[in-house]
């Protein structure tokens, strides 16, 4: 049983356009049997935060190529990418390096 996890999810580089222009979101993930990882977080974002055009943010179960993910200000490649287990008060930042959308 994973306890509810509260995170700060931020968007930059143009990605915020898909989220009503709001850059910072304070979210609390509900408790669920499996621990929260980035993979589940993305699914959660897709259902709850993404206002339009999910294909511009996600591709399959990961983010669209060209969107960078920083976990606590470090490259997610150093932290295990999709398998990183989220902890309370983590900060996840998505920066788009694409040409828009």
């Amino acid at each position: 049983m994973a306890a509810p996890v509260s995170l700060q999810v931020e968007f930059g580089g143009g990605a915020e356009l898909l989220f009503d222009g709001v850059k910072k979101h304070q979210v609390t993930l509900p408790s669920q049997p499996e621990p929260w990882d980035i993979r589940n977080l993305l699914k959660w974002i897709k259902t709850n935060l993404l206002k339009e055009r999910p294909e511009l943010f996600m591709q399959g179960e990961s983010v669209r190529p060209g969107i960078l993910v920083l976990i606590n200000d470090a490259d997610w490649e150093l932290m295990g990418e999709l398998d990183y287990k989220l902890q309370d008060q983590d900060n996840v930042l998505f920066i788009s390096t694409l040409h828009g959308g």
Partner: protein
Amino acid sequence: MCEANRGCGECAAGLGVGLGAPRRRPAAVCRQPRPCVKCGDSAAAVVIRIGDGFCRACFREYFVHKFRAMLGKNRVIFPGEKVLLALSGGPASSAMLRQVQEGLSRETAKRLRFVPGLVHIDEGAVCGQSPAQREQNLAQMEALLQETGFPYYLASLEQALELPGSVLRRGPGAAGEPCPSYKEAVEGFIQQQRQEVADGDGDTSSAGLSTQHGPGGHPAAPRLPPAALTAELLRLFEAAETLTAKEELLQMLRGHLILHTARTRGYPKVMTGESCTRVAVKLLTNLALGRGAFLAVDTGFVDSRHGDVTLVRPMREYMAKEIAFYNHFFGVPTVITPPLSTKRREKTSIHRLMESFLLGLQADFPSTISTVYRTGEKLSAAPAEASSELQRCLLCLCALDIDGEEELALEPTLVTEETGDGADSRAAFIPLLCYSCRLTFKEMGPPATLPSYVRTEARHRSCRARMKEQIQEFLLEDDEEEPGTS
């Protein structure tokens, strides 16, 4: 590799670094990032290339060093020269501005030695922004530019419609005068500085570099252009049938406007912030657009097609990822404006398609973009043979690459519709354009929607071509000699 002294034993970090395996394997889950590969001390914060984790300090050093090495290696910017920085507000050009600021503020020996000016072009009209949003963006950009203390110029894309025809003509290049070699120029500059320090009251600020130029732009001029001009610009863009043509048109107008600003304000060099990712995408896109002959000019470090103004691309070795991380870590302010085709489907234009193709490939094979870039680096621009204006493309100013026109399969498809209306029919433009500009032109609206400077210059050139044809028989060829002269 995670060293044992970090106490993080479960980190396998099997990334195949150095084994030449191109395919990226996902890193093992790790709570503490492994140490920086350069200094080994701090925790790595960003992964450069394939698997090299750098800490913030080492990353910053790497980033700054790359910029200076780029300028130093190519030796195109002479000391004391005026350089115009073209800023879109996006991440790459903002990072470029920050690098220039940092470079100019170092101790004398290592300081960058040119005099920057800034230009920003507001393209909000064609990107679908409301006047209120445009005003807001302009205000933000202006605050950003003002803070740097460099002279800046704000322009809007609508002003491109009022450009003079000379924009389409190659300026007198510096080829005629003997250019001092780079080394001599630097030595001369340093001597001059020493002289000034000795003569002056010992203050170390070099003339011009640190004096605060006031905003050389428009003091309290009306911010947004008149609505009629905006409407005309929108009509021009609406008339373009495909998104690809719109993108090409936008780049063309933007380029002309920047060139005009540089020419009128006396800047012999312009720096644009195209990142490695962008250069690689542009390389492949331009191939698809039929600009294979001009790849070196379009994506190289130096672009001297305009003669008197040289375009320089110092950011072309930075991946978009490195730029994004740098901006985030070191607080570089950016003003994001939505581009031409935001939120649309992927395959609407060749540019978008190529971008998603390359980035998708890059996700699995992280050396894709640098490979494309390095292949492009091997291309070198051919020396400028076409000097007379009749031999350069009207729109892109590259050499006309069409010799045997009859052989082109393109020919029948272009001369279809309108009856020859004289100077303003489509057929009149065709001989003045290079292959790819012909393709773009075919997808643009009727020539009447084109900006007047394009039409005027086209008419002028057609006229000269006709005249030349008429007097052709009276002209002496280079290899002929008049009898009686020695």
